[in-house]
């Protein structure tokens, strides 16, 4: 894959512009946003389908350095550089590039006054997301949201509603397993090239679960981690085992894996008065199984038969609207000029801090186990 041209070009078409102190910021006056997609690989094509379905967006063009891939864009303008797309006049861009290129693309787009939706992870390191946040702060009119689409999965939405209701008490702990088995073209994927991706399965997939830990349970102050690279032999981890702990006494643990031969998604939320389990995940392939949430209430000590096997309610979901709901939220933030409250740059920073702390702990080396 060729490098992205991130050379700045000023926008030539803006609806209204106003001085924001440093750069020009585009204000949207129409009800439909002209959107561009930056990076037309796997995620870019997914985002295009969502943009095509959205009543709030129209596709203005795509950016893709690879001419053969660019040709797949069909009847929309296809550019080889982000600057050309921005110059064509867009309100928003979807950054779907490999991790190495995401920060520069975000910074360039925001500097040009475009609102930005960026896929996770937000770059390869904490310094990457910090740089993106600096650009965001310098362009106060633009909206910046990150693609933690798992927050919009139906099982997670329901879990969040139950936790936030307070009906089952506070969150005591969380446990997550998220893993895959590789897949077609896995060995050749840029995701397994450390220079491009910045990390292995933890940064690529496990970051979703870490984000959900924060979304459902709040922040964590301490991180421990082991990583393995025993099967695939890449220069990045194929398994990560992360333990988190908060000052308030809440704990969480994650197994993120590229060697789960049966694709698995499972999030356990343990509350004072019960538990939630979200397992299975609606996806294009269906390989993670049917998404569902199990809700169980603790059997209390004064009951005659407290056997640790309480009655449960199970909700099965058949329709994944996560991509559409997520983009609708982004478009609403832009059109209604309200702050990005879900999957914000602060959320991205916090989860990247966890990932980086996990890698640092893992690479510091384990202490010897007592014998």
């Amino acid at each position, binding site marked *: 894959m060729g490098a992205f041209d991130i050379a700045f070009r000023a926008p030539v078409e803006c609806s209204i512009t106003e001085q924001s102190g440093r750069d020009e910021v585009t204000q949207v006056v129409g009800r439909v946003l002209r959107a561009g997609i930056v990076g037309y690989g796997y995620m870019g094509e997914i985002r295009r389908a969502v943009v095509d379905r959205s009543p709030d967006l129209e596709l203005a063009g795509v950016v893709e350095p690879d001419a053969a891939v660019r040709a797949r864009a069909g009847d929309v303008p296809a550019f080889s550089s982000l600057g050309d797309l921005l110059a064509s006049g867009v309100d928003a861009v979807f950054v779907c590039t490999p991790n190495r290129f995401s920060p520069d693309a975000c910074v360039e787009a925001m500097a040009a006054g475009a609102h930005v939706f960026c896929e996770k992870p937000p770059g390869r390191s904490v310094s990457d997301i910090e740089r993106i946040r600096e650009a965001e702060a310098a362009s106060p009119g633009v909206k910046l949201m990150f693609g933690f689409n798992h927050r919009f999965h*139906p099982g997670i*939405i*329901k879990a969040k*509603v*139950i936790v*936030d*209701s307070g*009906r089952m008490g506070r969150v005591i702990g969380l446990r997550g397993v998220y893993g895959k088995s590789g897949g077609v073209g896995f060995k050749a994927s840029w995701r397994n090239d450390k220079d491009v991706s910045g990390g292995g399965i933890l940064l690529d997939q496990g970051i979703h679960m870490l984000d959900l830990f924060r979304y459902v349970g709040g922040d964590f102050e301490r991180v421990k981690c082991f990583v393995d690279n025993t099967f695939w032999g890449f220069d990045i981890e194929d398994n990560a085992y992360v333990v988190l702990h908060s000052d308030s006494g809440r704990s969480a643990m994650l197994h993120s894996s590229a060697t789960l031969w049966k694709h698995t998604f499972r999030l356990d939320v343990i509350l004072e008065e019960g538990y939630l389990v979200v397992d299975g995940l609606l996806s294009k392939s269906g390989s993670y199984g049917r998404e569902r949430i199990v809700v169980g209430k603790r059997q209390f000590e004064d009951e005659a038969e407290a056997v640790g096997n309480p*009655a*449960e*309610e*199970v*909700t*099965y*979901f*058949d*329709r994944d609207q996560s991509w559409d709901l997520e983009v609708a939220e982004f478009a609403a933030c832009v059109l209604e000029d309200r702050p990005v409250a879900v999957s914000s740059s602060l959320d991205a920073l916090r989860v990247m801090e966890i990932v980086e702390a996990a890698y640092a702990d893992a690479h510091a080396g384990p202490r010897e186990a007592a014998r």
Partner: protein
Amino acid sequence: MKNIVIFDDYSEKDLKPPALLREYVELTERDVREMLVPAAALRVPCPACLSPDVASTFEKFGLTYAECASCGTLYVTPRPCDSGLDRYDRESSARRFWREELAPGSGAARREKIVKPRGEWVVDSTREHLPGAKLCADIGTAQSTYIDEIAAEGLFDRVVRDALFERADVVTLFEVADRTSDVDALFARARAMLGERGLAFVTAILVSGFDLQMLWDRADNIFPPDRLNVFSVDGLKTLTARHGFEPIEFSTPGILDVEIVAAALERDPSLPVPRWARYLLSREEHTRRDFQRFLQSELLSSYGRVVLTTV
């Protein structure tokens, strides 16, 4: 779309004490014969799919139930109009007995097992699918306890009953479609109240459920006017689609199908229940529970609950 499976432990006896229920049914039969049979002049096609074709019929309390040959919905025809039913609700001794004896007599269990979970269902589902909803309007629920429970959750600015033609974000129709003569008018009104975007919460007894399929005309809980329409799963989907709704949840989280059939067989072993079902019902508790869970997950229980969104 989503589908709920619920495990809980309560029995029909907790919800409807047998002696009180027997008296209620006796009063209902008497009142129906006196007040509704003479008023039953409306011949109707299937209220769900509008098919005029009838597969079979049977009689209860002097009124005729027809089984729709197309969608399987069971419905009374000819039937009284809604004004006749209103008069029945106001003046019948059966309804008075329900309000003054049966409902208070089973109040605590009903509140814990039925009313409270239903309130949480409405509130949680609204938070999931229509955050920001402000007004919830109930249409036709006989008891205010459901409304009180929803209001107590504190999500809505206003929760109102029978607010004719008032705009709402959410409407609830708790078993009201079962006992309404003009079902099309009911759903048209709900749809009009919701405008462009809203949610409707519907509960209903479903004839496609296990206990009703097994017991059919011998089912104790199928009688007019409480069950003027007993929709099938397919019928309820057709009816709601015709009025501009799309289901985002369709569940049959009934707990009691297996228990009801077992109890009916115990009372009357001569009931025409198939040999395999008799064998199943004679198995261990965990087998019966697992079968009830299967009924729930495959939309084969007779208690239906649906969340609809406007399209």
